[in-house]
């Protein structure tokens, strides 16, 4: 059971990490795209 908890935590932990990394990367990309658009005077 304890061993199973390790594998479950490994699966869900790294799965969540991948999704959070994707969201953070996308957040940075959208912020920089917005900043460049605002520099050019577009929304």
């Amino acid at each position, binding site marked *: 059971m304890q061993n199973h908890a390790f594998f479950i935590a*490994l699966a*869900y932990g790294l799965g969540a990490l991948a999704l959070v990394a*994707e969201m953070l990367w996308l957040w940075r*990309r959208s912020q920089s*795209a917005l900043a460049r*658009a605002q520099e050019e005077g*577009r929304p």
Partner: protein
Amino acid sequence: MNKPLTDFSRAWRWRQLASPPVFYQWAGRVWPWLAGLALLLAAAGLWVGFLLAPTDSQQGEVYRIIFLHVPAAWMSMFIYLVAALHAGLGLVYKTRLSPLLARALAPTGAVFTVIALWTGAAWGKPTWGAWWVWDARLTSELILLFLYLGYLGVVSAIEDSQRADSAGAIVLLAGVVNIPIIYFSVQWWSTLHQGATIRWDAAPSMTHSMLAGMLLMALACWAYSLAVALVRTRCLILERAQEERL
């Protein structure tokens, strides 16, 4: 009497979404709702999967990995098909938004493929005694990851956007043949990977609470994918507009 006119105006409103500026505004309004829905559905799915679903009599607790593994594997295949469809539409009809949608979907599809492979490995080690086996299902899913990476590599390597979209579309369309291979691999070959738990032509071979947990998590992955794809499409619309002005 008014019905045809109403249908026409509704259809016209949807068709306007093919215009990048209209889509940009619409996606900006919709994505926060989808992100909230994804959070709620994931919370409900994990609650059902970890607190309501019973322990499996053969696999014990480790089977609970399927609540992430199966939806991730479904999304990896489904997103690929939708991305290939949009890339194909862009290639044939030269629509402006379709290639952007394909580009927006592919990274999320790749992330779900990695999650499906990773969670499968974490389930395989305690169940089969191995992190990885060169089984038809696992190998074809790995090929799917290479197809996603190949597409992303091609579209980022070619500087001219339209040429990059065309080359990327060819990669995506050529790889579509891999999707039925992944899906039917457990039927076509003698594999270590178990057969489909949920089939269109048969009742599911799991209890209702297990099924509910898995479907809730699948819906959460759907909502997440849509939200992320909409935000990424907004970025791509801005970036493409900046490129065109240069």
